[in-house]
């Protein structure tokens, strides 16, 4: 019961912060968007040169550091990693690539829907479809393998990167790119963004908030715990938008969005499937990175890499629609993700069968039995 109250309260607070960030300057329906913000960071560092989306979003640093502080206080900060690291890097990249065709991570998907953007309504079934496919793999035994203890320094990579980026955004040296126009130029004041990130980081760390887990746990276990938080967040933002007059229902002229329904559906499917295979949505990966999980840090670096690729190759969606390159990429990535899922699940099945046979030959009666 206490768990339930906590996650619902967290949903409300995160929703209010999201609304506040838009009022204070963030782009519409983008109070928070992990994919967009990491893409802006990739741009700010010059990893891509799309001039309209370059800024070192302090919300991201706040999220990682907020999670780091809470994990530390609650003795959950631990250096772990070594579970399918390279695969996770690419799963992160694929998540970002899907998100940038749709124009938003799963979190922004909810925010767009709460702002009346019906293109998001097409993408939600796509996202759930991707998660559903991932759940089939999970049920069959898909696993990236157990993580182990890692050198303590490895745990600090995520938080230290966050500190480094924070220094760069405050010092603003000439080699960092800041958009003069477009979404990258729309931003809440630096320290408010940072503070908002810290608060959400703390809440998300405590509640294990995850926009993929919300749907995955329903499909897998009929467990509505994470979903309740996500649903309350959605309702809070919806009410906030209605109150502040930023709710506008329709497909056309939605902020930072396009109307290519097929590609909205398929690209969010990529995000859903990749998120299940990687064990968490982009937000969750940032939080885990703050908790000392080196695998999650690798996934976050993959997200940044994916963003750079998308803009350098001109594959990212824009209000004009999803470019042909982006469309081909979505189909190819769908096939790659299915390949990853099949191959790993097959190996897991073969290994569990081999284990069962070994056990049978060792102990003819019962595997583990106690009086």
């Amino acid at each position, binding site marked *: 019961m206490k768990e339930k109250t906590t996650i619902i309260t967290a949903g409300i607070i995160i929703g209010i912060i999201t609304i506040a960030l838009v009022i204070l300057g963030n782009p519409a329906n983008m109070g928070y968007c992990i994919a967009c913000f990491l893409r802006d960071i990739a741009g700010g560092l010059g990893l891509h040169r799309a001039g309209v989306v370059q800024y070192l979003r302090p919300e991201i640093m706040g999220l990682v550091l907020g999670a780091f502080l809470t994990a530390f206080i*609650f003795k959950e900060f631990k250096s772990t990693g070594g579970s399918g690291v390279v695969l996770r890097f690419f799963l992160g990249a694929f998540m970002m690539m899907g998100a940038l065709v749709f124009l938003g991570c799963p979190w922004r998907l909810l925010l767009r829907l709460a702002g009346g953007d019906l293109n998001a309504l097409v993408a939600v079934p796509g996202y759930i479809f991707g998660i559903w496919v991932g759940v089939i793999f999970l049920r069959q035994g898909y696993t990236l393998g157990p993580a182990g203890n890692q050198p303590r320094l490895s745990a600090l990579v995520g938080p230290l990167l966050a500190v480094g980026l924070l220094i760069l955004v405050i010092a603003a040296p000439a080699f960092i790119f800041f958009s003069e126009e477009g979404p990258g130029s729309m931003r809440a004041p630096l320290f408010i963004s940072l503070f908002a990130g810290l608060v959400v980081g703390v809440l998300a760390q405590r509640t*294990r908030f995850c926009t993929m887990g919300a749907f995955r*746990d329903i499909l897998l276990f009929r*467990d509505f715990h994470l979903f309740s938080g996500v649903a309350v967040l959605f309702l809070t933002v919806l009410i906030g938008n209605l109150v502040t007059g930023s709710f506008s229902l329709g497909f056309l002229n939605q902020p930072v969005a396009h109307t290519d329904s097929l590609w909205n559906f398929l690209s969010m499917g990529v995000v859903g499937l990749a998120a299940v295979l990687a064990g968490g949505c982009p937000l969750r990966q940032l939080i885990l990175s703050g908790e000392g999980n080196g695998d999650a840090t690798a996934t976050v670096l993959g997200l940044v890499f994916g963003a750079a690729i998308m803009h350098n190759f001109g594959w990212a969606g824009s209000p004009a629609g999803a470019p042909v390159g982006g469309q081909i990429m979505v189909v190819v990535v769908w096939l790659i993700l299915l390949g990853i899922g099949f191959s790993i699940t097959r190996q897991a099945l073969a290994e569990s069968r081999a284990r069962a046979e070994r056990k049978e030959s060792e102990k003819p009666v019962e595997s*583990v039995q106690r009086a």
Partner: protein
Amino acid sequence: MTSKIIDCCGLSCPEPVIQARKAMQETGLNQVNVRVNATVARDNVARAARQMGWQVEIEPRGEEFLLTLTR
């Protein structure tokens, strides 16, 4: 009383929950012991077991937790 031990150390959620649920659904078992080494896994397995009407005992063991789930 038949029981089973499953080791979920290092596995990230939802894998420990999937394995624990699978064990709880096995016929004839009335006790399942689950080893985990993360608080997230501990909480999630405990919540899943309670939802399925099992009783949960949690015993910290150094860096790990041993969950005893009984029907």
